[in-house]
């Protein structure tokens, strides 16, 4: 009974007693959820258009951020460095399309997945060769990202808001909104959705697959750059950052591989669930449960809906 009380009742009592702490936890979960969603978005973009599960997304985040910081350290003004980092991602998109995707067209998914692992190795080596392996500081100041904190008294206690977190949430939301509009309203966006539906049908109405692939990889690169700036500002730019890409996996699964709104909602569920779980139930198990909680949340959702919350319904035929 004691255990049941501790698991089922005490955390909620604690939540009710200290609503300001609950709010703080919720806010932190929200911010990390938005950032998870941003990384998951990079996966979704590529998966939708080319059916490739891009293992290299995590390293693309690191690589983009490293390029930005590296260029700035070489004396390039911050905003120009930002543009140049974008250009590097465009170059990468062209290279990936030409060297990896085109020769491997029509291969099984798992082979393309493997190819992106090769790309990961290549980018790790290249990034370390050019910029060195040591962790770097993100140039938050030069990019006009706000710093500092605001403390508000809400629900009877102080709740701390990092300005950077607010900015991250806003920027991520803007990016997501732009992408959503881009994919639903523009010509390229419609072409991309056609490709996602069926490669053959899209080809037959004159959509260039190669062009679409460059565009999505570029879009994923830009998303990676933004994610790199945001995560880099929170925890420094280093190669360990690619681990967060694995955190995007449950987000992705939760939302369904093919859905942009799914990625966002999945990100929020995982981000908030993880923080709440760690804060209220973590101590019962000795802490550190946020390493696997996200996966278990995703697993539970999956058992209920095997295609993810917003994924296309899986119809199986013989």
């Amino acid at each position, binding site marked *: 009974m004691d255990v049941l009380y501790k698991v089922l009742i005490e955390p909620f009592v604690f939540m009710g007693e200290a609503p300001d702490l609950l709010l703080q936890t919720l806010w932190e979960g929200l911010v990390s959820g938005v950032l998870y969603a941003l990384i998951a978005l990079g996966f979704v973009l590529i998966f939708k258009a080319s059916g490739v599960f891009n293992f290299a997304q995590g390293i693309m985040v690191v690589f983009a951020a490293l390029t930005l910081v590296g260029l700035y350290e070489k004396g390039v003004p911050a905003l120009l460095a930002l543009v140049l980092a974008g250009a590097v991602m465009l170059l990468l998109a062209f290279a990936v399309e030409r060297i990896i995707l085109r020769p*491997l067209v029509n291969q099984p998914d798992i082979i393309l997945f493997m190819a992106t692992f*090769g790309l990961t*190795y290549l980018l*790790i*080596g290249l990034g370390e060769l050019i910029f060195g392996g040591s962790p770097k500081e993100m140039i938050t100041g030069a990019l006009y990202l706000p710093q500092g904190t605001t403390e508000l008294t809400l629900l009877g206690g102080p709740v701390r808001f990092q300005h950077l977190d607010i900015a991250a949430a806003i920027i991520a939301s803007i990016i997501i909104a732009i992408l959503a509009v881009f994919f639903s309203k523009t010509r390229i966006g419609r072409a991309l959705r056609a490709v996602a539906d069926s490669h053959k049908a899209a080809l037959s109405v004159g959509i260039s697959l190669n062009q679409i692939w460059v565009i999505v990889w570029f879009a994923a690169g830009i998303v990676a750059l933004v994610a790199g700036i945001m995560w880099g500002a929170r925890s420094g730019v280093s190669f360990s950052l690619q681990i967060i890409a694995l955190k995007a996996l449950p987000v992705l699964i939760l939302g369904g591989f093919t859905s942009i709104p799914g990625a966002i909602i999945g990100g929020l569920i995982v981000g908030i669930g993880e923080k709440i779980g760690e804060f209220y139930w973590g101590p019962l198990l000795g802490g*550190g449960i946020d390493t696997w909680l996200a996966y278990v949340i995703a*697993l539970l959702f999956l*058992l209920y809906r095997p295609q993810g919350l917003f994924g296309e319904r899986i119809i199986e035929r013989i």
Partner: protein
Amino acid sequence: MLYREAGQFKSTYASDMVVFRLKEDRAGLAVIILMAYALAFMGSDFLLQAVLIPFLVFALAAIGLNLLTGYAGQLSLGTGAFMGVGAYACYKLMTAFPDINVIVWILVSGFFSAAVGTLFGLPSLRIKGFYLAVATLAAQFFLQWCFIRIPWLVNYNVSGALDAPLRTLFGVPVVGATATPQTRYIVVLTLVIVLTWVASNLVRGRIGRMWIAVRDMDLAAELMGIRLLQTKLLAFAVSSYYCGVAGALMVFLWYGGAEYDVFNINQSFFILFMVIIGGLGSLIGSFFGAALIFIMPILLGIVLPIMLAPFGIAIGAETIEHLRFMIVGALIIFFLIVEPHGLARLWQIGKQKLLVWPFPY
């Protein structure tokens, strides 16, 4: 010219069904096994300890994952954790019952891993493909967390690490600091050969065919009367058994002690990529994959400085490390483009060509 099918007649059904149909193949295999044993006495300690033992261990783990992913079609990213279960189970058994031979415990520890694998294989009935990968990722992270948080697993060791107590086989130390690389290598080699033999018979028989049917289309397999739940869970169990044994071998016969960090997610990916690049659904591919992904970086580390030296490019160890990463990445992409079905397919094509060489018409 020496490798010909002509003139080798099969007069019984049994001879028609053997694994190696050509006597050249059988002779080749015998030579390879003999050479592998001979290496124990001729190879240097570095070769045995840092190259061959890890290669065999990884090959065994890759075979385990190949049974699951290549034959039964269930994607798993929890290999590292299942290896860990084997290692920790072996440690507990070894220290609780020190009188029983360690080889027995290494083989038994696989069953614990199989049980855990079956448990985490349960969602596979409902979840498929990349979605299943997340279920196994949950296993990976949850089990790794258990390795850190449950001190009972390491007998309340202060360091929290696994150590290898001295254990002997016929009076010769096998596990522990005093065991020579030679004895370790021979033990690992023997176990890997036996387990590979078991696996090759498993996949050729009824069970293997059920797995392949489920992989190719589980719905159709179900309609044909194959019970999906049992088949998939059996695949998880057998695969985890192999991984568990590989994990136990890795800790006690290669590292001689390890921390939980050895069984992290990178290990899982590493083994998955060995399986894919070696060839899904091919046992020999697992060996090729392990060789490519594990031995190639070592070779590059040795070869690169020698190759660059004549150009007067003296480069630091760090740069070599980075170049190594880049070359390995480029080679993975290159091999996939040349032959997406893995090195095993290349091997097969090579053998086919050799059969008709030098007159291919």
